[in-house]
């Protein structure tokens, strides 16, 4: 006996049957002996024993774990039923999988990038001060000079304050020279961030001497450690040379630690009040101090500082704000709003998926009302029927759930691959989020179960006889259950219209962006950075000689059409400066973009000259006080006045003692000699900023940008350019080689990401909604087969039947479409977002959405309608 009996049941049953037979024979024999007739003897014996089948069943059940037994039966039956309707089943599975997969993937990304991107201690309690320009909030300041920083650290509201200043240094010694991101941090930084190193120790306050001089020690990032020391633990104590200063490696941080760099290192900062390096400052509040109090204290300090150094603060007045570190750093601006919107979008998608599952389950179960009624009428207990339906729904939902999990993993990977790295903090780690997976899977599975059960509950309340009678009549007039299903379809269509609108707007925005005239010719231009060692090239003359030498050699390289040397963003961005125009009252709020260029700049980038002339070779070589401006800047002069020959004063070059090494005779006043056409220097989406172009030789910073227009593919020339540079200085690295087209491409990465995801989810929503329409109509055809037969028998044409079904489908679709469009307008008013560059009233997007939806809905109606119109009335009438 024991557990083996569960496996020997068949045997057992046969033995019991024999035993009962033996009883019957014995009893019959006894009865015969009592003088009964054989016939009566057997009957009496049988009566005495009772129902043999019942007895055997009773014994059989004793040998089973009944729950498991019925579960297994139900499961097999359920899978058979599901397999009989592969269409419905796969659609339900697809809905579940897409809903779960997309929701989980997007939330995983949102969690990794927005909610918990940092390994630092309590990142939500880190505050960054901002001095916000009263007139132009975009031009606000977030860094202090060292003397001001020291005062900020003394404010009573702050428990701890730290500062960061990144720079590129030249790494020499082992291997080829390279640019190494070296982040100076105050000595308390690692206490402040509170992440333990994986090797050695982090920077400690003892690494800075009492006189403020820091020890030459460096903590390496994980990647730099892998790259420079092959991940060897011996790295601790080794030396690396940065800008000709020897630093000793004291520690290695874990891979996720990426404070301002994930491929460089951290050194203790020199806090010297004579220095002009900006210190990016963050703070933690003292316990019990509110943000508002801290802001007041900080503002009071700012006002004091502004009195002492008015030039450092906005002239139009300012406010002081403390920003939460997570708000300003975790996936900046557009990426943030894009992810938030996408999260909303997948929420809709999950809703559509659930509605679809509910719909299908209801259709399926309603179709089985008769079967259920029949089962109950022949004695199946209500609980037993419920359990069977439950098993079916759970099986369906679980399979869908598993598919959903697989999709979630795949989608998450795809999104991470699509995501523009630039917008994501380098500390962020994105992986499938277990909680969300559980949540979305739970929701969808629950939907499947609840709606799978609803008809069973209804059925058990139902008059069995009615249902059976109704069913035999062909269910022609019964509309029960139709209303909620129609409503679900309308909801689905409406939600998918909203999703499609989002997709349409992102597509339109992207297309607009692609069509933007950038104002220069981006083809065949190679850009490389040149970062010279400040020690080796200590003087203005050395630096200029180096760049001139490089420029001359590169120009002469076969395959190079022209070359230009410059600074900052060629062609985007760059430093901005206050300015004043000679002979005009000073305009306070205006700033101008300052570009440093060599003579061939406009030729190399292909920017047409509008008026006057370009800078000459000689002017650039001498560093003359001449300038070219763009058309936007020309507007600063009074209408009708030509700016050519006029003079402009640039505040940026009026700062003595900065590290930029101005030429001996540099003056902040420049004479305008020409006007260049506008370029999209503020990014593809924004109007061109006013810009002024000066000879690059006016100053001599350590970093320069070299642009080369090539005859063939620009990257093919990279090696030749490198050889030329290293013939001038064999230790000189090239940084970040990139083509101008790639730089332009980066500008469209975020819009492309938005477009790809919104379109993807929009189409998913559409597919699910179409499936919803299709299933409701198909079901209606089945339900109304009898009625359609009657209509046809009474003379309805096939076209009448087609029209009947299209009217039905059309009503659902139009209602959904109207609701969806209204919803989109309402949402667009609430969510003004940079993700959508075109307004929701954009005609083309609107037209596109309506067209796509109508065509898809038409196809969804067509199939069931055709089936209905082809019904043979005779067969339809007999249809049960």
């Amino acid at each position, binding site marked *: *006996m024991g557990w083996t009996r569960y496996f020997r049941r068949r045997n057992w049953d046969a033995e019991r049957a024999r035993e009962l037979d033996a009883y019957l024979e014995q009893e019959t024999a006894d009865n015969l002996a009592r003088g009964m007739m054989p016939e009566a003897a057997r009957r009496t014996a049988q009566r005495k024993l009772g129902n043999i089948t019942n007895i055997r069943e009773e014994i059989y059940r004793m040998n089973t774990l009944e729950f498991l037994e019925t579960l297994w039966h139900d499961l097999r039956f359920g899978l058979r039923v599901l397999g009989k309707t592969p269409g419905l089943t796969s659609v339900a599975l697809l809905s579940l999988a897409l809903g779960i997969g997309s929701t989980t993937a997007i939330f995983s990304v949102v969690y990794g990038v927005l909610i918990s991107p940092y390994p630092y201690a309590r990142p939500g309690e880190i505050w960054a001060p901002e001095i916000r320009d009263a007139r132009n909030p975009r031009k606000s300041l977030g860094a202090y000079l060292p003397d001001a920083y020291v005062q900020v650290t003394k404010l009573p509201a702050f428990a701890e304050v730290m500062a960061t200043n990144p720079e590129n240094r030249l790494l020499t010694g082992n291997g080829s020279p390279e640019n190494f991101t070296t982040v100076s941090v105050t000595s308390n930084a690692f206490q402040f961030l509170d992440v333990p190193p994986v090797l050695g120790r982090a920077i400690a306050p003892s690494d800075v001497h009492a006189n403020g001089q820091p020890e030459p020690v460096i903590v390496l990032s994980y990647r730099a450690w892998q790259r420079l020391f092959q991940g060897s633990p011996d790295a601790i104590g080794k030396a690396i040379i940065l800008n000709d200063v020897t630093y000793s490696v004291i520690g290695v941080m874990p891979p996720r630690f990426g404070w301002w760099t994930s491929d460089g290192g951290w050194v203790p900062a020199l806090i010297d009040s004579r220095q002009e390096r900006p210190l990016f400052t963050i703070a933690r509040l003292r316990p019990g101090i509110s943000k508002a109090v801290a802001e007041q204290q900080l503002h009071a300090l700012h006002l004091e500082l502004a009195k002492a150094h008015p030039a450092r603060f906005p002239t139009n007045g300012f406010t002081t704000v403390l920003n939460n570190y997570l708000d300003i750093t975790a996936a900046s601006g557009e990426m943030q709003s894009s992810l938030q919107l996408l999260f909303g979008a997948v929420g809709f998608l999950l809703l559509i998926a659930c509605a679809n599952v509910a719909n299908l389950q209801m259709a399926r179960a309603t179709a089985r009302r008769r079967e259920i009624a029949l089962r109950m009428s022949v004695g199946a207990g209500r609980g037993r029927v419920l359990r069977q339906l439950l098993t079916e729904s759970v099986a369906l939902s679980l399979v869908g759930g598993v598919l959903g999990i697989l999709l979630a993993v795949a989608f998450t990977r795809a999104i991470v691959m699509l995501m523009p790295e630039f917008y994501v903090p380098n500390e962020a780690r994105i992986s499938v989020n277990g909680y969300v997976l559980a949540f979305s899977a739970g929701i969808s599975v629950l939907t499947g179960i609840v709606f799978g059960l609803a008809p069973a509950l209804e059925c058990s309340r139902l008059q069995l006889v009615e249902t059976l009678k109704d069913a035999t009549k062909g269910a022609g007039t019964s509309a029960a259950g139709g209303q909620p299903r129609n409503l679900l379809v309308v909801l689905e269509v409406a939600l998918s219209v909203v999703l499609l609108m989002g997709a349409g707007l992102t597509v339109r925005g992207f297309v607009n962006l692609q069509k933007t005239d950038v104002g220069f010719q981006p083809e065949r231009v190679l850009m490389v950075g040149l970062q010279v060692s400040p020690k080796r090239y200590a003087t203005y003359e050395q630096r200029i000689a180096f760049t001139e030498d490089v420029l001359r050699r590169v120009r002469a390289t076969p395959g190079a059409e022209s070359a230009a040397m410059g600074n900052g963003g060629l062609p985007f961005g760059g430093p901005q400066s206050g300015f004043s125009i000679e002979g005009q009252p000073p305009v306070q709020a205006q700033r101008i973009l300052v570009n440093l260029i060599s003579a061939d700049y406009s030729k190399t980038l292909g920017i047409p000259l509008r008026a006057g002339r370009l800078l000459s070779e000689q002017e650039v070589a001498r560093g003359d006080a001449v300038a070219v401006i763009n058309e936007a800047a020309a507007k600063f002069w009074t209408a009708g006045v030509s700016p050519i020959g006029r003079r402009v004063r640039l505040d940026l070059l009026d700062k003595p003692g900065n590290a930029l090494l101005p030429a001996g005779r540099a003056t902040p006043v420049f004479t305008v000699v020409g006007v260049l056409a506008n370029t999209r220097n503020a990014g593809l989406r924004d109007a061109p900023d006013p810009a002024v172009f000066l000879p690059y030789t006016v100053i001599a910073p350590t970093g320069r940008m070299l642009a080369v227009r090539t005859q063939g593919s620009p990257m093919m020339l990279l090696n030749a350019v490198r050889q030329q540079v290293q013939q001038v200085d064999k230790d000189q690295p090239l940084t970040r080689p990139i083509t101008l087209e790639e730089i332009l491409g980066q500008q469209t990465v975020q819009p492309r990401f938005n477009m790809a995801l919104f379109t993807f989810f929009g189409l998913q929503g559409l597919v699910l909604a179409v499936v919803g329409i299709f299933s409701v109509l198909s079901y209606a055809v089945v339900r109304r087969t009898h009625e359609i037969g009657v209509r046809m028998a009474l003379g309805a044409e096939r076209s009448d039947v087609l029209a009947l079904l299209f009217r039905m489908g059309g009503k659902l679709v139009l209602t959904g479409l109207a609701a969806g469009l209204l919803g989109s307008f309402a949402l667009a008013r609430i969510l003004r977002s940079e993700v959508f560059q075109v307004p929701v009233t954009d005609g083309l997007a609107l037209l596109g959405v309506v067209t796509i939806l109508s065509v898809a809905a038409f196809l969804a109606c067509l199939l069931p309608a055709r089936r209905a119109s082809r019904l043979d009335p005779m067969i339809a009438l007999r249809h049960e």
Partner: protein
Amino acid sequence: MLQGTLDLLILQTLVLGSAHGHTIAHAIEHRSDDVLQVEHGSLYPALHRLEDRAWIASFWGTSENNRRARYYRLTAAGRKQLAEQTGRWDRLVQAVNRVLRPVEE
């Protein structure tokens, strides 16, 4: 019939020696002077249950009239169980009697 009493009766019947289902059914009927009418069919699930608990064991044998029949015998555990259940039964009967017939004096 009271729940559990059938088990007790079967065990008691088997004290006298092994028997097959038919014999057990009739034995219970006769020895209670036909008061306890066992539906003979219900005997078999009970037999199965007892065997499952290892209180009785079964074997195939030949019946009085030379037919193959399944015989049951009491196991040691069954004997012990019988003693226990009989004791419990006696106590139950006494208790019920005391309630039904209060001391008449």
